[in-house]
């Protein structure tokens, strides 16, 4: 068999029921699916029967990385975790969570591209992986502990360089809104309780090997530098947030915050971020400060440094030091995270005594972050907090709780924006204590059902961001019009796709974006200005397809889709072009398997279609357009009743969205009536066996 670079070459299978540990050949079985979500979907199609429930022993969890994980490729720290999603409602379907940190690289250095977890241990266990030595160990001493203590305990055993992916009490207690987390602050939501259902507390990995790169070393290093030269700041924002000497453009909404006068005030000595000319590749890490971006200017003086994943210069996790939070609340004074983690605690509150960007907001961030990251509670992309606010301020919580339980919360503290309220709420979610804690931990869909509330009401409220199946939107019509809506119809949880938003939020003027759009999607009309939408066109359908395929490609290669694709750059001398072939160049050089952009996109389409096929099979319907690819009412609603396409509105026209779905299905080669892929489309991407199976089940259009 041909020897490839990039991949570690082995997939580890651990059955917790019979404690059998086995090895499979990655290339032989999974090369056509690259890695990451590709391996995850392949395992679920082949091995997990329809009707399986998330907490059944028959459900599996696939931790998988791709051929670029642990290499020198920028932004390669992502681990994809595939399982039946416990917050997907009313029926659990396949989903993936994604964590950064050091787990992906460590897994590769230990010699594995994926771990398939199956069965259920008869008592709490943790899995130790030290290169070839894999053991299932008693977790009695760490069961009941938070993620932080678990990480420390297992690091004592495996050494400080090990990466520990652990669940907290929320996962142990089968709270669906729970995470698995590694490297202190890098989590994947929704997975914690599935691990808990298997009595699996943690996976700790230590690898001492390396990854071979198939291509010429100098060529590889040139490519890495080239890729680095195309990077912007977090989310591939390619212009700075304020005017800089070198910059032709700037955007106050950009996450490229570095500037003269802006400094990491809690570092010693204080470090000024400076202008950060994009040609200086050694200063990429100074560009982003997500604490300052989300918490406000006040965060600069508390910033210690940036942090992030293996191989990523962006450092989107910002470390902050807040002595007042430690003094007032008895929590560690240092914490770090990125968007969702930084916002976790503060987003429960509607106001703070010193304003939404004052010190109390920072303290609420710290309290929420430390508790959520230790108990292992998931926010479902902020839906937990939005639901909580609505339920409280509309009096629903009061109505649904008994008087005793309602009075056990300090609602006066909550209304005043006192972060100590979180000490009352979050433990009860993690431990399923009381009706409120239990209900919030279920996730939106099951929570609404439990309280007899109507999902259709949630779908009408634009402030809730709720989309469908228990989950919110993730970059939809608020910024990317019809393309964003299409993308949000496709998954069984929030879409987690950033290909489109990273383009429209990159900070370049609309005229430049349109020029780039014409080069990428064949027409400048593929993109509109935010809130200046125009009717659907084929460019938007192409952009939607491209965005989805790039997401799956990144999730399978272990490139970060929170950063890529890299089709725009900060470089004026390139007319702000990025490079749409960067993924294929990296893949080809790393693995030695020469693939053009188009060939790699075909693999991405195969992976995306396999997700579609599993969803169709497990829903047992081909009527995806009606039953799955649904759009909430608020997308078509404007509070001021302005006509669609009026500048300043983001609502869309239902008929135009029908056309949009038609055009998208056509681009994908799917049946327009049902929204299901055709036999020919499956065959074209190499999934003829899948098509045959679906045909047998009557699930082809």
């Amino acid at each position, binding site marked *: 068999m041909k020897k490839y670079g990039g991949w570690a070459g082995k997939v580890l299978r651990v059955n917790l029921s019979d404690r059998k540990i086995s090895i499979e050949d990655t290339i032989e079985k999974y090369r056509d699916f690259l890695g990451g979500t590709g391996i995850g979907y392949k395992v679920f199609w082949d091995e997990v029967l329809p009707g399986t429930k998330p907490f059944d022993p028959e459900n599996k969890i696939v931790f998988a990385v791709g051929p670029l994980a642990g290499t020198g490729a920028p932004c390669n720290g992502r681990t994809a975790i595939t399982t039946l999603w416990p917050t997907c409602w009313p029926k659990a379907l396949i989903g993936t969570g994604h964590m950064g940190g050091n787990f992906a690289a460590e897994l590769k250095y230990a010699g594995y591209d994926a771990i398939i977890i199956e069965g259920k241990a008869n008592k709490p266990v943790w899995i130790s992986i030290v290169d070839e030595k894999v053991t299932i160990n008693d977790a009695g001493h760490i069961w009941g502990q938070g993620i932080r203590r678990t990480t420390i305990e297992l690091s004592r055993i495996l050494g400080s360089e090990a990466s520990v992916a652990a669940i907290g009490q929320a996962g142990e207690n089968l709270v669906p809104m729970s995470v698995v987390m590694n490297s202190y602050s890098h989590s994947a939501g929704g997975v914690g309780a599935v691990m808990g259902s298997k009595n699996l507390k943690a996976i700790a990995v230590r690898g001492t090997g390396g990854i071979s790169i198939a291509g010429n070393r100098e060529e590889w290093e040139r490519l890495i530098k080239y890729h680095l030269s195309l990077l912007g700041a977090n989310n591939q924002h390619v212009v700075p947030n304020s*005017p800089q000497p070198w910059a*032709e453009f700037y*955007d*106050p909404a950009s996450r490229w915050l570095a500037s*003269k006068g802006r400094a990491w005030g809690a570092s010693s000595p204080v470090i000024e971020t400076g202008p950060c000319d994009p040609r200086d590749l050694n200063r990429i890490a100074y560009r982003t400060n997500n604490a300052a971006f*989300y918490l406000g200017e006040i965060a600069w003086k508390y910033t210690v440094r940036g942090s992030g994943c293996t191989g990523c210069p962006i450092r989107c996790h910002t470390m902050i030091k807040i002595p007042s939070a430690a003094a007032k609340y008895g929590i560690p004074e240092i914490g770090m995270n990125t968007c969702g983690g930084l916002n976790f605690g503060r987003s429960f509150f509607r106001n703070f005594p010193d304003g939404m960007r004052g010190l109390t907001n920072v303290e609420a961030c710290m309290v929420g972050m430390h508790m959520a990251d230790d108990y292992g509670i998931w926010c479902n992309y*902020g839906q937990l907090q939005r639901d909580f606010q609505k339920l409280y301020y509309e009096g629903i919580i009061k109505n649904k709780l008994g008087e005793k339980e309602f009075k056990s919360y300090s609602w006066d503290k909550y209304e005043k924006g006192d972060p100590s309220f979180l000490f009352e709420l979050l433990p009860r979610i993690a431990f399923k204590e009381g009706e409120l804690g239990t209900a919030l931990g279920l996730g939106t869909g099951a929570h609404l059902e439990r309280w007899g509330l109507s999902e259709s009401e949630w779908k009408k409220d634009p402030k809730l961001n709720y989309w469908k199946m228990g989950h919110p939107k993730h970059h939809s019509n*608020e910024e990317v019009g019809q393309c964003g809506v299409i993308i949000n119809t496709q998954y069984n949880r929030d879409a987690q796709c950033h290909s489109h938003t990273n383009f429209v939020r990159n900070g370049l003027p609309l005229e430049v974006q349109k020029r780039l759009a014409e080069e990428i999607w064949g027409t400048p009309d593929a993109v509109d200005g935010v809130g*200046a939408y125009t009717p659907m066109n084929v460019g938007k359908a192409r952009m939607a397809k491209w965005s989805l395929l790039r997401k799956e490609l990144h999730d399978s290669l272990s490139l970060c889709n929170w950063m890529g694709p890299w089709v725009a750059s900060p470089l004026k001398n390139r007319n702000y072009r990025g490079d749409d072939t960067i993924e294929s160049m990296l893949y080809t050089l790393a693995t030695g398997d020469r693939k053009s952009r188009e060939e790699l996109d075909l693999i991405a389409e195969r992976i995306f279609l396999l997700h579609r096929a599993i969803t169709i099979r497990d829903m047992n319907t081909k009527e995806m357009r009606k039953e799955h690819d649904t759009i909430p009412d608020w997308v078509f609603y404007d509070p001021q009743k302005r006509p669609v396409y009026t500048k*300043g509105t983001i609502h869309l026209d239902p008929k135009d969205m029908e056309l949009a779905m038609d055009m998208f299905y056509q681009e994908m080669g799917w049946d327009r009536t049902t929204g299901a892929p055709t036999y020919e489309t499956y065959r074209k991407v190499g999934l003829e066996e899948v098509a045959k199976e679906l045909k047998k089940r009557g699930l082809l259009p």
Partner: protein
Amino acid sequence: MIKYDENPANLSETRQYEDLSMAIVYKIREGSKAGRLYQKDEIYLELMGEDIQEGDDERRKAFEEALKRAIEEHSDIKEVPGAGGALFYYSEEYMGEPYVRLLLQKQGDPLLLIAETVRDNSASYPRPIPLNMFKNPPFDFSEEEIIECLRQMETKDLFRDIARTVTSAGTVFLYSTSHLTPDYASMLAEWFDVGQFENP
């Protein structure tokens, strides 16, 4: 040719340049990297260690020749007139024309600087911009100065197109009514100030 080392006031980081014109190039480039436009007398003072008005003719002449050569031999070194006709120097390798324009406007009428910046943003991106942006470099206005500028702008016809919108978080944004409708500006400001953080 004057050897640069003959100058007692030379700066250690530029000792490597024997030729004065290279020292000038270096000085201008470093200034541009740091966001500074140089005037001739500032370069002279920093390199020659004396006021240009007080320098002897031979040294001044040598400096003028070196400056001329710096511009001729280095295509990135540019000369641009500011308000009042004074000449400024920068390296376009390290400083873009938009930033140069801001720096020159800054030396003129601050009201015009704010208005032109607002108009440019409203026209080309398009977007309103938060008032607080004018506290950052290269504007560096204080809160009081910004408020005073806005107060004065309200009284002048020249700035009638400059309007404000306030987000639900209380942040003030400015826009030009020549390029954005109030409705659109309001929506965009709300998106930049509130919406994007709720959609991280």
